[in-house]
C-alpha cells in the first residue's frame, strides 16, 4: 500500500492533465494523450506500470501481428493485397531450430563449465592458499580465465554476471535479428523495413539496458564470428572454435569484460 502511494506520487509528478474516471487509477493513468495526428508518432514508449507499457508511441512491431493477423475480416471482400505481408506473420513465429543454435548452446554450456571450475578453484586458493589447482587442466586456458575473473571481481562480482548476461543477450538478440533479416530477404526485406530496421522497434520494448548493449553486440559479433556467419560459416566457425579452444577464443571474453 505504501509502495503504491509512493508510485502514485511519482507519476503525479509527470503532470497528467486529462480528466477521466480512469485517471483515478494510478496504474492506468498514463501520459497525457493529446495527439490527434497519427503522423506525430515520435512519443517515447512510456511505462504505465513497472512491466506494462502503453501501445501509443511504441513501435509498430508490438501490434504488427495483431493488426495483420487478428481482428474482423469480411469474407465477401478480399482483403487488399499487401505484397508479401501475409508471410510476415508466419515469419514472426518461425521457431529457430538450427545447427547454429545448437553450436551456440554447446559453446555457452562449455563456457559455463570453465567459469564454474575456475571460480571454484579460485575459492579453493583463497581458502587453502594452495596453487595446485592451477595444474589440474591446461594451465593457459584456466589461468586466463582466472585472470579475467580477477579483474571482474575487482569491479564487483555481481557486475560480472550482468556483463556476461548482457553479452549473451546480445548474441541471442543479434542472432534472432539475423534470422529475421535472412527471412526478410526472402520477402523483399519487408520485415526489416516495416519494423523500422528492427533495432529501434524491437528494443523499444526492452529495458533501457538493451540499448546500451548494442555497441557490445557488435563487438561480440565481430570477435566470436562463430554461430551467426551464415550456414557455411556456421560450420567453419564451429570447427575453428573447437580447434582453438583454450587459446584464441577464450581470452577474448575476459578482455571484453575488462574493457567494459
Amino acid at each position, binding site marked *: 500500500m505504501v509502495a503504491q502511494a509512493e508510485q502514485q506520487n511519482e507519476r503525479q509528478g509527470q503532470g497528467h492533465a486529462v480528466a477521466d474516471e480512469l485517471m483515478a487509477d494510478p496504474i492506468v493513468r498514463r501520459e497525457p494523450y493529446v495527439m490527434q495526428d497519427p503522423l506525430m508518432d515520435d512519443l517515447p514508449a512510456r511505462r*504505465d506500470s513497472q512491466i506494462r507499457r502503453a501501445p501509443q508511441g511504441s513501435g509498430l512491431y508490438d501490434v504488427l501481428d*495483431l493488426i495483420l493477423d487478428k481482428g474482423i475480416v469480411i469474407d465477401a471482400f478480399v482483403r487488399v493485397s*499487401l505484397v508479401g505481408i501475409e508471410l510476415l506473420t508466419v515469419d514472426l513465429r518461425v521457431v529457430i531450430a538450427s545447427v547454429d543454435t*545448437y553450436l551456440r548452446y554447446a559453446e555457452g554450456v562449455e563456457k559455463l563449465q570453465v567459469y564454474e571450475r575456475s571460480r571454484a578453484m579460485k575459492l579453493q586458493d583463497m581458502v587453502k592458499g594452495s596453487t595446485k589447482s592451477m595444474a589440474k587442466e591446461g594451465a593457459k586456458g584456466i589461468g586466463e580465465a582466472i585472470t579475467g575473473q580477477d579483474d571482474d571481481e575487482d569491479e564487483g562480482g555481481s557486475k560480472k554476471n550482468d556483463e556476461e548476461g548482457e553479452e549473451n543477450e546480445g548474441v541471442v538478440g543479434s542472432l534472432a535479428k539475423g534470422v529475421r533479416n535472412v527471412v526478410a530477404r526472402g520477402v523483399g526485406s519487408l520485415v526489416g523495413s516495416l519494423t523500422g530496421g528492427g533495432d529501434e522497434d524491437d528494443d523499444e520494448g526492452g529495458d533501457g539496458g538493451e540499448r546500451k548493449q548494442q555497441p557490445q553486440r557488435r563487438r561480440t559479433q565481430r570477435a566470436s564470428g562463430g554461430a551467426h556467419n551464415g550456414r557455411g560459416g556456421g560450420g567453419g566457425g*564451429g570447427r575453428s572454435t573447437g580447434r582453438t579452444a583454450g587459446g584464441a577464443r577464450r581470452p577474448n571474453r575476459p578482455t571484453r569484460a575488462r574493457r567494459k
Partner: protein
Amino acid sequence: MSLHLYGVIRWPVAGLTPGAAANFGTGIGSPPRPVDAIVHQDLAALASRVHPGEVGTSNVRVLRRDMKAHADVLNRIVAAGKIGAILPFQFGVVVPSEAAVAERVLGGARARALRERLERLEGAVELKLRATYLEDVVLREVVAEQPQLAAAGAGSSRSRGGSYQSKIETGRRVAAAIRAKRALDAQRLLAALKPVAREIRAGRAGSDMTVLSASFLVGRGAIDRFDRALEQIHARERTRLKLDCVGPLPPFSFTDLTL
C-alpha cells in the same frame, strides 16, 4: 468512395455525433483522412475514405505509415476510455461504399454476432505479454540440472576428432532441456495470471528463448490487479526471465469474427 474500416462500436456514444470533426481523429492516407462513424441501427462502423488502390501499395514506407495509423486510431479510442467496447478490424479491410457498410458489415445476421461480441468484450481490453529467458541464466540452470551436458560440452572442445559433431549433439540435448523448461515455466506463468484475466489466448513462441507469448482479456477495473500479478512474477523471476507487456490494446485476439 471506398472506405477503410477500423472497428465496430455500439451506437450512440454519449457526446459523439456522426460527422463531428475530431471524433476519432485521422486514419490512413496521405494526407491522413478523418475517421468517422457510419451508423446502422444500434451499431456503427468507424471508417475513413480511401482512393481505390491507395491501400495495398507495395511501397513499404507508405504501408508502414498506414498500419501505424490504423493501430493508432484504435489505441486512441481504448486510451480515452469513453467507449465501452470496440471490435477492431484487421488492417486493410476496405468496402466500396457507405451502403455496403449497412449491407455487408452491420446488417442482418451479422448485427447479432457483433452485438454478442460487443457484450462479451464490454469494458475489457487486451494485454499482450511476452516472456523470454535470459539465455546465460537458463543455460546455467540446464547445466546445474544436467551436469553431464556441461561435461560433454567441455570434453568435445578438447578433442580434435568429432568435436563438431559432439558439439551439435550437446547443443541438441541442451535445446531439448530448454524446451522442457519452457513448457513448465509457461504453465506457471499462465497459472499465475489466469485468476486476473477474463480470457487468455496463448500464441506460438517465436524463438527458443520465448517462454510465453500470450494475450490476456482483462476488464479495465482489473488492470491494476493484473499489473500487480505481473510485478510479483517479475520480482520472483527477474534473474532469469524478461517480461514485456503492452496494453491496453483493442481486443484483436478476442474478436474472432469473420463477417
